[in-house]
């Protein structure tokens, strides 16, 4: 027999040793807490930097400079056919009327160089703007009314102070005459700085002052619509089948491994697949939201399947027992109890998947959604682009004002993301409250 008390400490000795370890434990805890806080602080710091960079560029990008000109809405010149139709208005001479209004505002300078300088001040899309204005307000025809036009992006960036007037004339994008004219317009209080209507209602354009995100926004909405329409039912059905119905054998194991691997496949690979299968093999058109949505759906499927399976697994077995116990069939148990209880978790997975899809650029480049498309897509079969691709394209343009447009588009993208997530979370809360 061994001595049972060998090596045992008296209570007093034990207290002493515990006290010694206590100090070590406490300092370890404090160190751990410090590192944790430091990590969070660093993450927050980067977040602040990120948002600071986006918002300091993006907020001014939401605004632009406009000039108000008194334009004579001459019936004969604006509407040569006299029927106020769009065709007639576009055939009219809106551009000359605007030019006259502009020159009048500049006290009618003479000489070719002066008129050419004046012409460059306002946006090249002004004629279209006047046509739209007249079309919307036909009763103003014949009068001379103040109409607001966008300034050219070079003038806009000059007014924002991006162009130093002290640099030699040859090194500036705008010459002294233009600066003199702009100063005159500012002095006569014709220039205003307001929220850009082109940004939200315009589409792709080479001119920074007219470039807008409407086409890309609609393209994103259509693409995501297709994406969620395909990936959510397919993902949930797959998850339910694998969790509740499929026998556990080698075959389902292989499927499971493949789904998990699919989640780790780089997104551009899905783009190549989309190009090879849908466009080359099936002959679908390029650049359409339908193909984009299908490709993104395939990309988000693994995310939705994996999170839906986790949600289904988290439904307590006692609920299944209860349903089976009163005589519900397997299908009834799944549809009446398991899916409703797992739905919040499934929606969370879908939100994550959709957020990924919304920000995805690479696969869409592969299927041609990077094309320069001015028209807003009217349906899933119309060529279009999406917000992140639009941002990518704008970031590529050289003009100074596109930098701000890019950040402004990023803000819109983030806002879209927040709206999307908030509505999904609201939906989830609502579903949870049903119980």
């Amino acid at each position, binding site marked *: 027999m061994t001595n049972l008390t060998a090596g045992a400490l008296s209570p007093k000795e034990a207290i002493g040793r515990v006290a010694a370890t206590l100090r070590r434990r406490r300092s370890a805890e404090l160190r751990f807490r410090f590192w944790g806080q430091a990590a969070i602080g660093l993450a927050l710091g980067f977040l602040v930097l990120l948002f600071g960079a986006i918002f300091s560029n993006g907020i001014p990008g939401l605004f632009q400079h406009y000039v108000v000109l008194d334009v004579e809405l001459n019936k004969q010149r604006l509407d040569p056919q006299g029927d106020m139709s769009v065709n007639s208005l576009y055939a009219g001479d809106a551009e000359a009327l605007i030019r006259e209004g502009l020159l009048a505002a500049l006290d009618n300078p003479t000489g070719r160089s002066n008129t050419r300088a004046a012409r460059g001040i306002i946006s090249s899309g002004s004629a279209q703007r006047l046509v739209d204005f007249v079309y919307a307000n036909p009763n103003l025809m014949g009068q001379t009314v103040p109409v607001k036009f966008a300034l050219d992006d070079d003038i806009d960036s000059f007014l924002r102070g991006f162009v130093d007037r002290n640099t030699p004339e040859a090194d500036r994008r705008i010459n002294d005459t233009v600066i003199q004219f702009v100063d005159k317009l500012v002095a006569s209080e014709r220039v205003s700085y307001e929220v850009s209507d082109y940004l939200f209602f315009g589409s792709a354009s080479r001119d920074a002052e007219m470039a807008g995100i409407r086409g890309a926004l609609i393209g994103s909405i259509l693409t995501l619509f297709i994406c969620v329409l395909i990936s959510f039912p397919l993902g949930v059905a797959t998850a339910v089948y694998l969790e509740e119905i499929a*026998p*556990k054998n080698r075959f389902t194991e292989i499927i499971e491994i493949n789904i998990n691997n699919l989640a780790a496949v780089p997104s551009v690979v899905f783009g190549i697949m989309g190009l090879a299968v849908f466009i080359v093999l099936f002959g679908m058109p390029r650049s359409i939201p339908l193909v984009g949505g299908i490709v993104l759906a395939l990309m988000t499927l693994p995310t939705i399947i994996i999170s839906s399976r986790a949600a289904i697994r988290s439904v*307590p077995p*006692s*609920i*299944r*027992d*209860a*349903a*089976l*116990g*009163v*005589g*519900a*069939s397997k299908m*009834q148990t799944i549809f*009446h*109890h398991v899916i409703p*209880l797992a739905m919040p978790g499934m929606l969370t997975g879908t939100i994550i998947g959709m957020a990924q899809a919304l920000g995805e650029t690479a696969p869409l480049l592969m299927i041609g959604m990077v094309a320069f498309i001015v028209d807003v897509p009217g349906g899933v079969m119309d060529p279009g682009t999406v917000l992140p691709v639009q941002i990518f394209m704008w970031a590529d343009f050289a003009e100074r004002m596109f930098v701000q447009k890019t950040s402004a588009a990023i803000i819109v993208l983030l806002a879209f993301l927040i709206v999307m997530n908030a509505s999904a979370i609201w939906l989830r809360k609502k579903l949870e409250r049903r*119980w």
Partner: protein
Amino acid sequence: MTDTTMTTNAAMTETRMEDRILPDKTIGQVHVEHPRMTARAVDVHYGTKKAIDSVTLDIGERQVISFIGPSGCGKSTFLRCLNRMNDTIDICKVSGLIAIDEQDIYDPSIDVVSLRARVGMVFQKPNPFPKSIYDNIAYGPRIHGLANNKVELDQIVEMSLRRAGLWEEVKDRLDQPGTGLSGGQQQRLCIARAVAVSPEVILMDEPCSALDPIATAKVEELIHELRAEYTIVIVTHSMQQAARVSDRTAYFHLGKLVEVGETKQIFTNPVHELTQDYITGRFG
């Protein structure tokens, strides 16, 4: 000093348990005059492990029979065979014959859904659906199409809750979630849910193990009342409960049905040594 005594005691119990041999044949009356359910030579395997070994037992009509025995003795497994809840476990294989009203419940022509409508079940942990009290009760009748209209369904719900002795407590809050009730009320809600589909047999798997003594007393009282209309099989760890609520008692040990008989006889005059030791609290 105390330690030594305990060790010796444990050692003694162990040697004595090994000495005891499980009987080849169940001791006591396995057959009854009016059986509702019959089990003949039922074996249950979990994979290669035998969980139930050749159990033969009749379950009498409008009787309460309780299954007792130490943990892992197979009483719950056997209970879950009676309404084929074991079907959900892939590796579980049942052989032998189990019949309700002389109809083999494992026959391929039997739909497990209709079987479970006839043999209801109440589980160890109260498991109301996360729905309203009303919907908890109405779920079974709805899926089986027992009510032709809302009025009939209301009647079924009220009747079931009355039978479970819960009506007075919940009649003003039928639209509130069933999960908001207390543990004992939840268990009675589950009994009401089982009753709502008008089963012939109700299986109860340790229905009071998660309840306090007062709630337990209420459920036991309820079992007393339900006996008039239903055949009840109850698995319990509490021998007092078995003695209080059941007409017959079956003692399981290591997958075998050791002894079965009138509850009074089992508790006052057990035949087999294992039964004797178990009910006197020497092990288990």
